[in-house]
């Protein structure tokens, strides 16, 4: 099986890669959002400490 054949997915390339591509994208976005949330939470704690000093 050639690479082109594999990517073509028997003519269903759009449906198969559309499924896996969007899933990967969703996971990546979720990971970035969780990382951002962590950054914001840490900043809040730092601000609280500065205000307390």
């Amino acid at each position, binding site marked *: 099986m050639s690479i082109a054949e*594999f990517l073509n*997915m*028997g*003519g*269903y390339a*759009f*449906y*198969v890669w*559309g*499924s*896996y591509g*969007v*899933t990967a994208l*969703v*996971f990546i976005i*979720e*990971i970035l*959002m*969780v990382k951002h*949330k*962590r950054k*914001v*939470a*840490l900043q*809040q*704690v*730092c601000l*609280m*400490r500065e205000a*307390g000093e």
Partner: protein
Amino acid sequence: MAINWFKYSAPTTFYGLAGKLVPWFAAPAAILFIIGLYIGFFVAPVDAVQGEAYRIIFIHVPASILSMFLYLIMAGYAALGLIFNTRLSSMMATALAPTGALFAFISLWTGALWGKPMWGAWWVWDARLTSELILLFLYFGFIALHASIDDPRRADRAAALLAIVGSVNVPIIYFSVKWWNTLHQGSTIKFTGTSMHVAMQQAMFVTLVACWMYAVAITLLRVRSIILERERNTQWVSELKEAGL
């Protein structure tokens, strides 16, 4: 040796435990995704009826199972928070909701991309599809209701009620293909056995475990931020020593 499990029901101790557990779920999740998709794309044979399009199953079925399973776990945590007034349970419920919603979205999205070539339609108002869509809206409702109430403890209680009432929908999704005449096919894997090729079963099982581990890792990461946000006025957070603080 007796382990005091109640120790970890306090946000203080769970915060550290969650941080230690994350890599033990994240790394296996990544490895299992690679193994599962390798089996799914290179070992599992072409389907006799659906050709290569059936390979969507290796993400569609695990995402659908996770979307239902995570809802029940979320409702369970929310109920614990409501009954015992434990802060951490409610925080876990809040942390699970976005991930559950994303799995419900993936289930619907991959289902649409599978439905188009096989049924000729992106969407049909079939019992299985409609009840899964309602599940996605229940997740949205939970998140929105929780976000709309300023006092976090009151928000926990209101959202918990919604989660508990909404859990009625999960068995409806699960049994919809039996109870009604749906365009969506019935379960391929039954207690009595399956007609599926063994490599297809293996691939689906491995990606299911991978999705589960991913969900655990991302939820633990998210709950750590929620704990910090909600406990930021407490003594232990002000004394917390950690990278970035």
